[in-house]
């Protein structure tokens, strides 16, 4: 079992979401700060205009500085916000008019220069603009400083409002970005999921290389996977080859042993010796049968990989197999009852013959002498069925599904030699042809086993 870590999709979504949150927060901060600065600059500009307007009306009359505050100088301050306004006009440090205690700002040196200060006045923070001008009073020029201060509630309200709007927009941006991240993560993972699905959809023995377009990031994985499957396939083929080779090598000397034993059987006269020789012959027969099955199994594995799908008639095929097994059956006085119908399919004749031979071989082997094995080929809709029933002892009481597994044999086979490969071979052939093999106990008319083969018709 693979330990599952956080999924790539979720990881991507979280990462992108975190980035979006960070960007949203940054943009909110920037918009807030910019809007604050803009509002502050607006107030500064109006304050500067106000002090400049006042300074322009300064004049000298009969040696004293005179001033008539223009209405607009204060009206313009009232136009942008409801902020409190304070002012002071001083000549050489002496208050000429306004709020005498409005002090503390810097005094501009250069004429016409406007200086801004932020200070506390009457319990509130005020922004103050100051401008200086020299007015000729008498013979000497007097330096007149005009200061106008305004509280900052207006810009605070503007800034707070803009900041709120920016916050709402940032949250909306974040939500949108998070949703898009989730979609993007899913979209970029789609090729991976598709490949995973196509791999998991494959049959258990399908070791063909995966041939489908893949994003460049996945290409190394695909190549590695294909190489692994290739190596696996080679290793399987090597072991099949080995088995084939081994079976061949065993069969030839076995045939020799059997021939020699037959000759010896005819030459010896003692009953005891004849019995032992017959046992030798039977053991050799079983061994050679098992070797044959191993060979069959290897053939099936090899041929199923690249299946030949030629049109053929299953009835002909069945009859041919029955024909070839008749001598063996006759030795046990077993007769075949064959019913056929035209059954056109597409498939590998050699494999299908191997499958039928193994099943019939089993039927003969487990049938008592002087019984009948019935073989019925029928056709229904898109299927072709072959049912082979014997009159043996049946499959016993145990579960039947695992009997097609390799080297598995039934519970009631004492006294009968067998390898347990026959049904496995038959089932592998069926599977290669997209067909199926079902085992069941005969239910009516005595004991016996039925094997049902189902294949798609051509």
């Amino acid at each position, binding site marked *: 079992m693979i330990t599952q870590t956080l999924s790539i999709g979720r990881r991507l979504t979280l990462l992108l979401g975190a980035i979006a949150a960070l960007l949203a927060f940054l943009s909110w901060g920037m918009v807030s700060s910019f809007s604050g600065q803009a509002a502050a600059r607006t107030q500064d500009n109006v304050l500067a205009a106000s002090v400049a307007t006042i300074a322009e009306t300064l004049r000298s009359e009969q040696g004293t500085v005179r001033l008539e*505050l223009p*209405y607009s100088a204060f*009206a313009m301050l009232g136009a942008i916000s409801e902020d*409190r*306004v304070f002012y002071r006009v001083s000549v050489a440090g002496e208050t000429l008019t*306004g709020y005498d205690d409005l002090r503390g700002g810097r005094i501009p040196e250069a004429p016409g220069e406007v200086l801004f200060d932020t200070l506390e006045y009457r319990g509130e923070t005020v922004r103050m603009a100051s401008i200086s001008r020299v007015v000729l009073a008498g013979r000497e020029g007097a330096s007149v400083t005009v200061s106008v201060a305004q509280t900052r509630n207006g810009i605070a309200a503007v800034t707070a409002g803009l900041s709120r709007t920016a916050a709402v927009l940032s949250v909306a941006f974040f939500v949108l970005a998070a949703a898009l991240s989730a979609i993007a993560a899913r979209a970029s993972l789609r090729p991976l999921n598709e490949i995973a699905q196509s791999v998991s959809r494959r049959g258990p023995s399908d070791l063909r290389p995966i041939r489908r377009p893949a994003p460049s990031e996945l290409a190394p994985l695909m190549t590695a996977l294909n190489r692994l499957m290739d190596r696996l396939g080679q290793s399987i083929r090597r072991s099949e080859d080995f088995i084939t080779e081994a079976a061949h090598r065993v069969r030839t000397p076995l045939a020799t042993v059997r021939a020699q034993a037959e000759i010896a059987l005819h030459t010896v006269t003692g009953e005891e010796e004849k019995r032992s020789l017959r046992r030798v012959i039977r053991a050799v027969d079983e061994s050679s049968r098992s070797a044959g099955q191993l060979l069959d199994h290897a053939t099936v594995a090899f041929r199923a990989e690249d299946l030949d799908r030629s049109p053929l008639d299953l009835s002909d095929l069945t009859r041919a197999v029955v024909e070839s097994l008749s001598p063996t059956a006759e030795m046990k006085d077993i007769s075949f009852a064959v019913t056929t119908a035209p059954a056109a399919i597409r498939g590998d004749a050699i494999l299908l013959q191997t499958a039928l031979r193994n099943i019939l071989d089993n039927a003969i082997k487990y049938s008592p002498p002087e019984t009948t094995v019935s073989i019925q080929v029928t056709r229904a809709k898109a299927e072709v069925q072959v049912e082979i029933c014997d009159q043996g002892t049946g499959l016993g009481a145990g579960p039947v599904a695992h009997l097609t597994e390799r080297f598995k044999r039934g519970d009631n086979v004492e006294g009968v030699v067998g390898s347990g490969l026959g049904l496995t071979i038959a089932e592998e052939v069926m599977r290669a042809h997209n067909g199926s093999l079902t085992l069941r106990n005969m239910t009516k008319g005595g004991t016996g086993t039925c094997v049902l083969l189902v294949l798609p018709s051509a």
Partner: protein
Amino acid sequence: MRLACLAFGLGLLAQIGLAQEIEVEAHRFYEGTSDSVVRVISTADLDVFEPFLLEFQRTRPAIGIDYTVTSSTELHRAMTQDHTFDLAISSAMDLQFKLANDGFAQSYRSSATDSLPAWASWRNLIFAFTSEPAVVVISRDDFVRQPKPVTRQDLIALLRENPARFQGRVGTYDVRVSGLGYLFATQEARASDAYWRLTEVMGRLDPQLYCCSAQMIDDVASGKLALAYNVLGSYAAQRIAEDDRLEILVLEDFSNVMLRTAIIPQSAQNVEYAGALLDDLLRAGMRDTPSAWVLPPLSDRRDPLPAAFGPIRLGPGLMVNLDQLNRRAFLDAWESGMEQR
């Protein structure tokens, strides 16, 4: 009851007179059923304001009202010199605004203040509840065979051409003592150059100068004056309703509209009741239906007077005319126009 009331009032009057030296024009105490008292200082005459106060007491009988009438300048002085009042009502917008700007008013917020139009309040410190135009009041007898002036130009021409008839019979505010008169005069001087020419023409006619609208209207009614310039329209309307010797003249070029405003002073002790009184005032100011109260609402659609400029704006611009240099310069110009003998 009345006597007790009066005695209490006189006692209070004496107290105020001794301790705080405000010139009080009138004073009345409306006793409530409990000990709570809301102290109101106002420039509005008692007979104008009484209906409102009685209505307020009808809904809140527990609250006693101590009502002091004074001039707008005295009111401003009282506010800046540690006198304790819970609500200050004045027609001098500029002085009221300066009180709010300089921190003598406290912030108040209620559903009534929130429903005020934006131009009728400032920073939740100062609230307007009436809009009252400045008008010309004439004596009908003097204009029987005379076309009535329609603009200031007409008025100037009329006064200039008939000096004998108007000699000593033209009245207006003494802007040196009346805060409202000063407000009307400065706003008018800003709006039209006709003001200064009118001042000069009136100055040649030995004008009578008054502190208050009521006296001017009295003198027009009695025939002492033929014409009173810049009279508070609301007072005039109230008098005309019962006196057919008077007539309001609508000058069509423009008219100044003043907002009567209220503040809750920083020194207020009974803020809760002051707020309740203020809310009632504002609701009265926002009424849609005609009422018996003479003080007009903030926006009177039946008002025939042209107010092209709208009401005088509540804003720092009002402080310009209160600047000592500006005031001195304005009064100098006014005096040289008004007192040329």
